[in-house]
C-alpha cells in the first residue's frame, strides 16, 4: 500500500472539476453539449455567415425544395419559402428567438425561483405558509392558461410572451427547489452545521447548495424544455412573436396551408425544436449522471 504513495500525483480536484472530468467521459452528452453551443453561436451570429438574409425575397425561387430533392438549389440548402426566402436563414433567425428566449427564461426563472425557494425553505411560520398556499394555488393553473391570461391583459408580443411563460413556470420551479432544499434540511449534517451556529446564508451556500446539484439540474432541464415548448406553442397560436419577427412556432403556423405543396417548410422547424429539446435533455442527463457518480 505504502509503495504506491510515493508516486501519487493525484491532485485534489475541486468537486466541479471532478464532475467535469466524469462528464467528459460521456461521449453522447459531450456531443449534445457541443451541439447546443454550436446552435446558440450559429443563431447568434447567423447574419454574418449565412449568404441570405432571412427577409430577402426572391420571386424566381419560390417554394424550392431542399437541395437534395429534384429541383433543389445548392444556394438554398433547405429550400425556400413561399416568398423565395431562404429556409435555412429563416430557421436560424427563428431559433434566435426560440432558443434565446428559452435560455433567458431559464436563467431568470432559475435564479429567482432558487432565491424564493431557498428563503421559503429556510424560514418558518406565517411567511412560508402564505407562500406555500399561494404556490399550491398557482400550481393548479395550467401554464397555457396562465400565458393566455397574461397575454389577454397585456396584449400579444414576444416580450409579453416571455414574461407570461416565466411567470407560469416560476411556481413549478420554486416548488421544485423548495422540495429539494427541504429534503436536504432534514439530514443530519445540516443539523450539525446549524448546531455549529452557521448563519442561514452560510448554511445555504456551503451546506445545501453543493448537495442539491443533482435535483437542480433536473428541474432546470425541465424548465428549459417547457420554456422551448411553450414559446413555440404560443408563437404557433399567434400570441408570441409578431410578424415580421420569426420564431419557430410562428414559422410553422405560417406554413400550415402550404403543407401539401412544400411539407419541408413545416417539417424542418419542428425537427429543430425536437433536436434542441432532445440534445438539452441528453446533456442534462449526462451532467446529472456525472454529478451522481462524483458524489459516490
Amino acid at each position, binding site marked *: 500500500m505504502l509503495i504506491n504513495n510515493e508516486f501519487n500525483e493525484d491532485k485534489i480536484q475541486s468537486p466541479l472539476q471532478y464532475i467535469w472530468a466524469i462528464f467528459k467521459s460521456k461521449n453522447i452528452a459531450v456531443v449534445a453539449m457541443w451541439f447546443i453551443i454550436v446552435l446558440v453561436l450559429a443563431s447568434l451570429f447567423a447574419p454574418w455567415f449565412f449568404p441570405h438574409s432571412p427577409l430577402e425575397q426572391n420571386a424566381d425561387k419560390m417554394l424550392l425544395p431542399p437541395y437534395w430533392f429534384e429541383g433543389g438549389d445548392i444556394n438554398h440548402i433547405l429550400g425556400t419559402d413561399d416568398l423565395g426566402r431562404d429556409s435555412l436563414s429563416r430557421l436560424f433567425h427563428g431559433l434566435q428567438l426560440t432558443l434565446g428566449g428559452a435560455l433567458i427564461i431559464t436563467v431568470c426563472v432559475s435564479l429567482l425561483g432558487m432565491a424564493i425557494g431557498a428563503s421559503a425553505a429556510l424560514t418558518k411560520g406565517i411567511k412560508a405558509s402564505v407562500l406555500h398556499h399561494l404556490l399550491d*394555488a398557482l400550481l393548479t393553473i395550467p401554464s397555457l*392558461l396562465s400565458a393566455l391570461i397574461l397575454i*389577454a391583459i397585456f396584449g400579444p408580443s414576444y416580450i409579453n410572451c416571455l414574461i407570461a411563460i416565466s411567470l407560469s413556470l416560476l411556481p413549478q420551479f420554486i416548488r421544485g427547489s423548495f422540495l429539494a432544499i427541504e429534503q436536504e434540511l432534514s439530514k443530519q449534517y445540516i443539523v450539525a452545521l446549524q448546531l455549529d451556529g452557521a448563519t442561514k446564508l452560510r448554511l445555504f451556500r456551503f451546506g445545501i447548495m453543493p448537495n442539491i446539484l443533482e435535483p437542480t439540474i433536473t428541474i432546470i432541464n425541465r424548465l428549459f*424544455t417547457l420554456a422551448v415548448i411553450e414559446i413555440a406553442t404560443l408563437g404557433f397560436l399567434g400570441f408570441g412573436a409578431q410578424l415580421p419577427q420569426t420564431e419557430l412556432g410562428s414559422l410553422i403556423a405560417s406554413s400550415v396551408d402550404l403543407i401539401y405543396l412544400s411539407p419541408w417548410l413545416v417539417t424542418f422547424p419542428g425537427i429543430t425544436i*425536437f433536436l434542441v429539446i432532445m440534445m438539452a435533455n441528453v446533456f442534462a442527463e449526462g451532467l446529472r449522471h456525472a454529478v451522481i457518480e462524483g458524489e459516490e
Partner: protein
Amino acid sequence: MLSFLIRRLNLLFITALILTIIAFIIEKNVVVNNTIIDTSSNNYLLQYFSYLINIITGEFGYSALDNQPLLARGLMFFASTIELCLLGLVFSSLVAIPLGVLGGLFRDTKLDYVIMTIALSGLSLPVFWVGVMVLLLPGVWGDLLPVDGNLSLVYEVPSVTGFLLIDTLFVTDQYGLFAFFDRLAHLLLPALVLSFFLTTEIIRLTRHSMTMVMRSNYIKAAYAKGFSRRKIVFAHALQNALPPIIPQLRLQLSTILSFAMTIEIVFNLDGMGDWLLSSLNAGDYGVLPVGMLIITSFILFFSILIDILMVIISPIMRGSLYANQ
C-alpha cells in the same frame, strides 16, 4: 381519519380562496378593460365579496357572444377535455407501464437506454407540430382516421353529459354504434399525440419507482428466500411500485391539461383550450376567469380525492392518518 380529512379540506379551502382572488383580479383587469361595466362602487373588497357570492351561488355570468351561461358551457367543454385526457392516459399506460417496469428492472443496460430514448423523444416532440404533421397522414395511408373535428356532421348527438363518447351511446337507437365509433375515430389521433407526452412521464415515474422498490430490503429478503425473479417482480414488486406513481402523476396534471388544450386547438376538437382560444379571439374575455376556476377546482378536488384514495389503499400512507405533523 376525520382529522386528516379536516386538514386536507382546510388546505382545499384556503387554496380555493386564493384562486377566487386570482380570478377576481383577472376579471377586473381583463374583462372590465375590454367591456363597459359600470363600476359604481370603488371598494375592491366589497366587489370581491359580491364576486365570491356570485361564484358560490353558481352565477358566472353570460357569454358576451351568444348569451349562453358561461359555467354550463365551460363545464361541457371541460368534459371533452377530460375525455381526451382519459383516452390519452389509457393509451400511454398500455405502452409506458411495461416499458417503465422493464427500464427499472434492467437499469443502466442497453434496453434501459433504448427505453429512455423513446421516453425522451416523446417529451421533445412539440405537440402542436405533431398535430400539424398528422395532416400529412391522409396522403400516406388514405382517409383512415379523421384529423379534425369532434364527430362526423351526419350524426346529430344531443349533449347530455358532455362526454361525447357517452352521449353517442344514448343515440344508439337512431345510429346504432356508428356514432360511437365515429367519435372514437375522431379522438384516436389527438389522444395518441397527447399520449406521447404522458408516456414519457409514466415511463420515468414507473422506472424510478420500480428501481426504488427493487432496492428495498423486503425484495432483497425475498431473493434471499430463493424466490424466482419472476415471482418477486409479479407478486411483490409491481403492487408496491405502481401505486406511488399516481400521486406523482397528479402533480403533472396541470401540465397534462396544458398539452391537452393545445392539442384541442390544433385538432379543432371541442374542449377547454379550443373554447378559451376562440372566445378570446372573438373578444369574449369573460371566459378566462371561468375557465380558470373550472380547471383549477377540478385539479384541487382531484388531488384531494387521490390523497384520500392513497391513504385508503396504501398501508404506508395510512400512517399519516394518525401522525400529528
